[in-house]
């Protein structure tokens, strides 16, 4: 089973696809903060805060783009 895990592709429904942005944002924020931060003890809190900002901005961007396509297209 482990051999097929990285060989065959998974079947992911379209509805579930959007949720994958959360772990991706978490990875980005952790790496960015690990590289930039001075005090590693603050890494968890700062990563989560940055992830929150990132997700809110992505959501806002999605809403704006949806409004644009709804109004003009």
């Amino acid at each position, binding site marked *: 089973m482990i051999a097929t895990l990285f060989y065959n592709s998974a079947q992911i429904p379209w509805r579930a696809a959007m949720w994958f942005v959360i772990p991706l944002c978490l990875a980005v924020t952790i790496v960015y903060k*690990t590289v930039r931060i001075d005090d590693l003890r603050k890494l968890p809190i700062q990563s989560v805060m940055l992830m929150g900002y990132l997700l809110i901005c992505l959501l806002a961007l999605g809403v704006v783009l949806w409004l644009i396509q709804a109004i003009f297209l």
Partner: protein
Amino acid sequence: MNKNKNKDKKQSRPIWLVAGLLAWLIPGAGHFYIGRRVRGIILFIVINTTFWTGVGIGGVMTVDSRYERWWTAAQLLTGADGVYCWYHQDKVYKDLRLDEDVDRAIETRKELFRRSGRASLANQNSISPSPTGRPDELQMIVDQKLQEMGIALVDPAGEIARGFSGVAGMLNLLCIFDALILAMMGKGSEPTLQIISTRRDAETSGEQPGGGIA
């Protein structure tokens, strides 16, 4: 005694080329080499987890150097992981090349280009995207074969897989630059927190802060 001191000082300064190469080859190894061990371990875990999550979702065709060149360039930034996955998908295409249907489709494509006067394109003897940009018989047969093998990458799994693995590569690029710059500046060790708090105290009391971060 001074000679030994100078020798130690010289030895403790990380070599920027080694830091950069290690940072590319194994995510986090560059930071580990220059002395930032905890950060190196965190970067190793997070970048590798992200990359292999992508490959776990997409399978062996996640790194596709023939049909997804830009994504492959990003994925190869993860170093050994990316090269390993590239090698396996290349092996799949080389095995497919031995298939009769694929061989026939390649010959058909070559013949079409010869007839249309594009002799240079007729020399391609491997599986590759159609130069016209529109899927031709070869591409459709390859897609069909990959589907029969259960390794064809279909959206949204394809988008997610390449997104994860490509982003992991780009994150590693950030880490490579950071390790390189830190090594060039000779700043290997973790920043000293005492100096940071001294600087804060000085700023609140209105005095000039002394020194910088080590």
